[in-house]
């Protein structure tokens, strides 16, 4: 790994000041550090944000669950408040990576990295999340812009993610058996007025399957999407799964999720 300067500021302002075009924020480091070790990324400054106290924690209000950026997956998975308000979100967090990754990895890191196979982005999309940064609030659908790309600008730091509490929700994942990343992950959330079906792992970036969402919005049942065609065009094809296989999994896992709701 190439050398860098390690910083551990105590507040967001200092963290932001240290940021440059050649720096990275470090939370759990479960992607950042392996990427640096493999030579895929290198930075002059690594800014550890875990000492910034206000970035960690879970708050539940009447309609929303707000999770601080440096809150670890294990904390979300085991939180009584999250289990009660959005059990699907706790379930999702409890199936990310493995136990040791969940002991370090964070929600802010996961969404800022926007891995096309990460689990959390699908929850953000389906649960109409608002991403709070140190500069503004961004709707999830505008936050995830492409493969490993987000709407975050230089020096901009995710502070918290605010999820809308749905009536019902479930997340179903077909994990890669080695990495536990989603080959396909489908997050179905039934809100008061409509239903969102968010898909991760299928394309270069998380997306809402509009057709499935529309069908379920008018009739929230497995039969509503029975036989619904999910097109494989634009889907990833790799050593783990072909595009056609992924398309079939999206349809299958959407049904599984609706059934589990």
């Amino acid at each position, binding site marked *: *790994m*190439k*050398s*860098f*300067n*390690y*910083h*551990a*500021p*105590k507040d967001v302002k200092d963290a932001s000041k240290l940021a440059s075009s050649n720096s990275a924020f*470090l939370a759990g*480091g*479960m992607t950042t*550090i*392996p990427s*640096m*070790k*493999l030579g895929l990324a290198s930075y002059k400054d*690594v800014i*550890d944000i*875990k000492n910034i106290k206000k970035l960690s924690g879970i708050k539940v209000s009447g309609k929303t669950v707000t999770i601080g950026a440096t809150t670890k997956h*294990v904390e979300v998975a085991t939180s009584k408040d999250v289990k009660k308000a959005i059990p699907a979100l706790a379930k999702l967090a409890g199936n990310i*990576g*493995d*136990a*040791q*990754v969940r*002991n*370090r990895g964070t929600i802010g890191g996961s969404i800022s990295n926007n891995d096309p196979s990460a689990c959390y982005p699908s929850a953000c999309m389906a649960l109409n999340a608002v991403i709070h940064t140190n500069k503004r609030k961004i709707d999830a659908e505008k936050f995830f812009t492409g493969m490993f790309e987000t709407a975050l600008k230089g020096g901009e730091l995710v502070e918290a993610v605010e999820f809308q509490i749905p009536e019902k929700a479930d997340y179903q994942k077909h994990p890669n058996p*080695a*990495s*536990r990343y989603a080959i396909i992950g489908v997050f179905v959330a039934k809100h008061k007025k409509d239903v969102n079906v968010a898909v991760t792992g299928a394309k270069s970036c998380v997306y809402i399957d509009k057709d499935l969402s529309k069908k379920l919005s008018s009739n929230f049942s497995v039969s509503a999407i029975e036989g619904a065609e999910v097109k494989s065009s634009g889907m990833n094809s790799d050593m783990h799964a072909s595009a056609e296989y992924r398309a079939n999994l999206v349809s299958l896992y959407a049904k599984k999720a609706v059934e589990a709701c």
Partner: protein
Amino acid sequence: MFINFTYGYNRIYSGRRRLMTKVTLEVNGKKVSKDVPDHTLLSVFLRDNLNLTGTHVGCDTSQCGACVVHVNGKSIKSCSTLAADVEGSKVTTIEGLAKDGKLHPMQAAFKKTHGLQCGYCTPGMVMSAVDLLQTKKNPSDQEIREWLEGNICRCTGYQNIVAAVKEAATKM
């Protein structure tokens, strides 16, 4: 050389401007303090700086779990954690489990059930399994297998590893 206390670390700037950090940890009950480059991984710190080579490095991409140690009681992968990041923490490695020459119940169980073949993954397996039993006293086979998802045994000795964890659960 000058020392800067900006973030509570002793930052030592050498003539070539390579940053060094003073990392102080409590490792297996003993306080240790070393000046290391900022990018030093916890696994490197333990193995190269403290000579605690029981913590193994297998895949080096945080998938295999051979490098698992406990930081403040929780199991983590030391090959994907910076030493500076865990400044001030209590770290337990495989060397810290046995007390007064007596094997930890988990180590004894691995020995008894032959929960190892080549032994390379064993330190990480043992450290992960100890963490599991801290939170779940009598895990099922399924729970043990799920918990050990982050530990890979390329001898595929999983049956006896699960048996070892079950055996240890009766002793811990």
